[in-house]
């Protein structure tokens, strides 16, 4: 095995000595408490390729990293020799506004990309958590999405081409820079959401959307979940086309409303319906219908949001966090008809374990996020409570034909419960895919489903 000194020296030869970090500074890049021997910051796809060729020759275990906002996702890595940080690999590659496609290097922060595209009234229709800091590569690797997916879909629907560096350093592309293409296999799908276990995404091309001229949101308080459930069902069964529909529990609505500077009736659940269009009248007409339906379903008078408060509200929703204390974040995917119940079960479970719980769900997509927090003074108790909550909520999600994953939790929790849950009979197929793409098992070992 290479000595640490040689390792750093060799890496320096590939990416420049000033772009390699080792020793105690490298431990700042620890993944689930496992510190890498070194961190390399390549400045180009060619350098990423050189580092991977080197890692492959030396059988180094590599953890790719964007800006680090999602490093808590995934199982505890089996071993971490090298963190491959893509933060220097940023910037736009090409952009043709009239074609509504744009390519960015993986280390580009989504926010940066949106600023560039915004000058032409266009955007990448993704609004994942931590959108200000998160990089495009990280968002794709974790298949991170947000409320807007109701209208625009997720990464799999928006990415048309990727450029990859493989475990052995080979560079390939998948897809094409046109909005419609079926030439060969759609490998983009395989790489998106693979958490860097198959290859490293170094560039991605998106189909873009026009920024709607007008966007508004109606936020309604509800005393009970039952009324909300009925309202969501009737909205989904109507010709209304909201781009987001978020159902929140009492704790989450209270906090999000406060963050957006809105008064909020005590003890109320919330439903936020967002509509965008090229025409104001079209937005207003839809939201008036929503307001009426909301009243009929028993909702109290709500807020019509636009401009500053609108943006503040959605930012607080996307980047929701429960303040200080110990944290865990879970994400469930369930049938649309089970969303309200998923919220209720979450509250029940949290209540039993004395946990504070915020729930924000994408009611039209069946995605439910649970934000758990507990007293920092008793970490043991919190961990145990999270482990038990995961089991209960996972069982519920599976009943609802979906799954539950841990987005964020301490290594202590992760060592006691599978962060992903069972994959079923498709696992061997996934293992074979992994073995084909990364036969040495050097990319992110142990962090993905089924121990991949």
């Amino acid at each position, binding site marked *: 095995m290479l000595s640490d000194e040689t390792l750093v020296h060799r890496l320096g030869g590939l990416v420049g000595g000033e772009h390699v970090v080792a020793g105690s500074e490298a431990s700042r890049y620890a993944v689930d408490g496992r510190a890498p021997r070194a961190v390399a910051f390549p400045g180009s796809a060619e350098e990423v390729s050189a580092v991977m060729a080197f890692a492959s020759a030396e059988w180094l275990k590599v953890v790719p990293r964007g800006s680090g906002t999602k490093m808590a996702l995934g199982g505890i890595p089996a071993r971490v020799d090298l963190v491959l940080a893509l933060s220097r690999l940023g910037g736009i590659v090409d952009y043709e506004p009239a074609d509504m496609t744009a390519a960015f290097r993986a280390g580009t922060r989504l926010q940066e990309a949106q600023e560039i595209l915004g000058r032409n009234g266009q955007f990448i229709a993704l609004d994942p958590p931590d959108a200000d800091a998160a990089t495009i590569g990280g968002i794709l690797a974790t298949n991170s999405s947000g409320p807007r997916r109701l209208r625009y879909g997720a990464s799999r629907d928006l990415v048309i081409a990727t450029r990859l560096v493989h475990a052995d350093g080979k560079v390939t592309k998948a897809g094409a820079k046109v909005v*419609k*293409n079926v*030439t*060969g296999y759609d490998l983009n799908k395989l790489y998106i959401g693979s958490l860097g276990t198959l290859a490293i995404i170094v560039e991605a091309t998106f189909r873009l959307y026009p920024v709607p001229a007008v966007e508004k949101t109606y936020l309604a308080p509800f005393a009970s979940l039952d009324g909300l459930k009925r309202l969501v069902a009737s909205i989904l069964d109507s010709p209304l086309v909201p781009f987001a529909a978020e159902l929140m529990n009492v704790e989450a609505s209270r906090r999000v409303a406060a963050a957006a500077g809105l008064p909020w009736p005590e003890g109320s659940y919330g439903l936020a319906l967002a509509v965008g269009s*090229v025409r104001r009248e079209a937005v207003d007409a839809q939201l008036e219908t929503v307001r009426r339906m909301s009243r009929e379903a028993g909702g109290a008078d709500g807020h019509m949001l636009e401009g500053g408060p609108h943006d503040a509200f959605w930012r607080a929703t996307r980047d929701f966090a429960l303040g200080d204390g110990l944290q865990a974040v879970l994400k469930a995917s369930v049938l649309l008809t089970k969303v309200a119940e998923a919220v209720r079960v979450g509250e029940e479970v949290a209540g039993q374990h004395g946990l504070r719980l915020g729930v924000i769900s994408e009611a039209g997509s069946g995605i439910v996020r649970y934000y758990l927090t507990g007293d920092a003074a008793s970490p043991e108790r919190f961990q145990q409570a999270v482990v038990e909550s995961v089991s209960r909520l996972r069982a519920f999600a599976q009943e609802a034909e979906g799954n539950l994953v841990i987005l964020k939790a301490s290594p202590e929790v992760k060592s006691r419960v599978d962060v992903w849950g069972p994959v079923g009979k498709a696992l061997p197929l996934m293992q074979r895919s992994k073995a084909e793409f990364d036969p040495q098992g050097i990319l992110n070992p142990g962090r993905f489903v089924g121990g991949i």
Partner: protein
Amino acid sequence: MEKERIAKVLAGIVGAEAVVVDAGELRVYETDGLTVFKAMPDIVVLPQSTEQVAGVVKVCHREKIPFVARGAGTGLSGGALAVEGGVLIGLNRMNRILEVDYENQRAVVEPGMVNVWLTNALAPRGYYYSPDPASQTACSIGGNVAENSGGPRTPKYGVTTNHVLGLEVVLPNGEVVRLGGRTLDPLGYDLTGVFVGSEGTFGIATKVFVRIMRKPEAVKTLMGVFNTIEDASNSVSGIVGRGIIPVAIEMMDNNAIQAVEKGVAAGYPLDAVAVLLVEVDGPKDEVEALVEPIKEVLKENQVREIRVAKDDNERLLLWKGRKAAFAAMGQISPEYYVQDSVIPRTKLPSIMRLIGDLSQKYGLRVANVFHAGDGNLHPLILYSSANEGELHKAEAMGAEIIKACVDMGGSLTGEHGIGLEKRDFMPLMFTGDDLAAMRKAKKAFDPDGLMNPGKIFPTAKAGVEVGAAGQRQILDKVLGPA
């Protein structure tokens, strides 16, 4: 392969009446929608359940016999042809809608179900299934999954992959697995995503879980009539440039109009150089608000005449011509050869000019009927195989169009697939390493390479009849020797 013995074993699984071995009957399966290619399977089986499919596949796997799935056989790239013989598994008897769940916006269907049946079944409740290839009254959803089929509605609603959330698949070793399902973000790799568009080389889809959608409150269809292709093309960019995403933007040129008018009399002006169909949908107020800006764009581009369909009948009439366009070609030419390469939208005027030039050069007429909104061309090259060498010329011309599209930053195919037809074009777009990555995915699904061999990947393998004119020769001429 000892045909008789195998046929008997297969009859034990699917029943004797569901096994075809007679040469005359096998002929039905010799070709698909692209009739220039022919290849005969040794045996055809027509299973009725997942268990039967799995049983048949297990036999093939054990005996190392190549096998191919087939839906309705409307594919336009030779995908369903048994180029190495073996067993062809016809899925049209598995054609039921298994489940419709409106509240969860999902349906589960069998692979042989004809695309339009689902939308028809959903209509009374005001729902529909979005991907609508022009062949939708015939093609199967299994074929749609395999080809990742599109249709006119893709600019706003996407293609098959955006609407398929899960699959039940019989893997090439006969195992049955579920990929994805009724909920989003299934665990692990997005195997549903990579299966869609794998052209029947990864396994046989035996159940398809799809998203169904609420019908929009309002739909408006406009037709713009133009004196130049350029103006029509620029209108496409102009509309999108206004922040409008129409459901569909379709273009037809004069040859196409002639054929359509002879065929179904949709009312397109016979002297128009191009017509553009633009459709928008959504809530009533929004749709109303979109009509004016679209008209403005058309006027900015010297539109000669604008027709806005007043009611559903007028709307359907406008679409009738478009939907029937391929079939109507018979009115003006005995045969046609269709390409479906893609270019970035901004390159529309230049590629249309080039196609015009090539038409002159080869002395063959071309009718263009295509998805202008996403730059997906469909030049229908008109020829007659009765004329010596014309098919040869048509194929060569098609190859030149493909090459030009790739040179402009486009793609070989937007919805018809690579299949047999375009496999030797793959190196135009992908390097050896790119293709090696695709082969890895293939190997994960089909380590023995038994399923639908001879498709997608380039091969100079002899012994396969590739087109009456001998495609290799054409490729050498147009693209340079392999």
